[in-house]
């Protein structure tokens, strides 16, 4: 049994959210640069150049990349030989969010009673936490601030199994088409196929954590990703919706078995500002 102090978790979560909101991961920057060089639309190229300029300004550490510093999503991979001491794990994470959003001058965007009063919780808690228990004695923490604009354009469909592969492709392409300029394209399209309703959506969200543009290791799924990617970029929406050949930077699909009656498909939309940071304790 390895012991990890709850206060270490708090410190780490605070640091990860601050870093995520100022420094875009290098893999994301690289695909945006590639897209800028390949984009046919002059307006689209201009938008991508300004996005790259924004990334440079933010990396000076004074002003966050985007004013929507998101809801605080935390993915944990908790080694089964880890023992958290000195406090409870989820409280430690929420304290980390509280401190990070305060110290990092990040916007607090969570509201309580979302259907009525919509009162700001003032510290961006509660965090949205998912935990997987894994072998080993480490704790992996992934902090993912997720903006509301792209999240709002996400979709779920319980397709009929008869709709099959083509049904999946059509649904995902339609979701991106209807989202249009709203989710801050170029987007990364996270797709989940299979499982139950909630499993499917979580697959789509977790697919966004993959290195951008890295294909699924399964050849059939990778081929599906390529086909959706081609169709999505043929929509013509382009950077910020002003028209162009770069509507998506990548399409990431993850798959799980499903019930004999079901073919769930989920689309979790990610704006170009695909922020996440991780650490191992």
């Amino acid at each position, binding site marked *: 049994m390895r012991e990890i102090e709850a206060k270490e978790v708090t410190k780490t979560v605070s640091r990860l959210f601050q870093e995520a909101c100022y420094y875009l991961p290098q893999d994301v920057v690289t695909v945006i640069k590639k897209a800028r060089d390949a984009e046919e*639309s002059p307006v689209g190229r201009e938008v991508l150049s300004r996005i790259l300029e924004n990334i440079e300004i*933010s990396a000076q550490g004074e002003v966050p990349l985007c004013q929507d510093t998101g809801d605080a999503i935390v993915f944990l991979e908790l080694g089964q030989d880890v023992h958290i001491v000195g406090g409870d794990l989820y409280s430690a994470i929420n304290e980390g969010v509280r401190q990070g959003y305060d110290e990092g001058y990040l916007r607090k965007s969570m509201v309580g009673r979302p259907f009525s009063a919509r009162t700001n919780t003032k510290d961006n808690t509660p965090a949205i936490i998912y935990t997987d228990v894994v072998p080993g004695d480490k704790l992996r923490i992934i902090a993912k601030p997720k903006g509301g604009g792209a999240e709002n354009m996400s979709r779920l469909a319980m397709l009929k199994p008869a709709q099959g592969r083509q049904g999946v492709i059509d649904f995902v392409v339609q979701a991106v088409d209807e989202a249009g300029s709203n989710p801050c394209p170029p987007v990364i399209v996270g797709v989940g196929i299979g499982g139950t309703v909630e499993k499917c959506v979580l697959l789509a969200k977790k697919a966004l954590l993959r290195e951008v543009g890295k294909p699924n290791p399964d050849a059939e799924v990778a081929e599906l990703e390529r086909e959706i990617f081609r169709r999505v970029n043929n929509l013509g929406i382009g950077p910020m919706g002003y028209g162009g050949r770069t509507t998506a930077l990548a399409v990431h699909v993850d798959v799980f078995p499903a019930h004999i009656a079901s073919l769930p498909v989920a689309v979790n939309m990610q704006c170009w500002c695909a922020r996440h940071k991780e650490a191992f304790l």
Partner: protein
Amino acid sequence: MAKKISLPLNEETLKGLEAGDDVLLNGVIYVGRDAAHKRLIETLEHGEPLPFDIKGQTIYFMGPTPPRPGRPIGSAGPTTSGRMDSYSPRLIAEGLKGMIGKGMRSEAVKEAMTKYHAVYFGAIGGAGALAARSIKKSEVVAYEELGAEAIRRLEVADFSVTVVNDIYGGDLYDEGKAKYRRE
């Protein structure tokens, strides 16, 4: 070449703007998003005056991050405009001439823009650090209790936007998409 424009918008300026134009805004803009819009409309419904004179003005749909000491504002990019669609036509009828945001507008908003002569500008979503560079001054002028959603008055210099919807019914989203669509 981007067109430099002085705010508030007048009829002559509005007539010279077309969907797709790059524009640099100079002068005063007001900031309001979901909660502030809801309050503005409730104020009008109660027959009370708005907290600022809206005639000729431009509203930026935005909720900034808190500023670091010595800075007028934090990150300050646009939010999704569609959430303001149910409020905007009423404000346009009251004299609002410009809106800045990102994402598609409803038919009702587009009709109000051609009928009363108002324009919709797109700013680059997510590029809040870049946008902040053009904001020289920021003060809360109403609904301070709404925090990041309070109404602010900004002074901007060469604030970069693109005309998405003009007074003639032009729509950059439709035109751009049609141009680059492939089968």
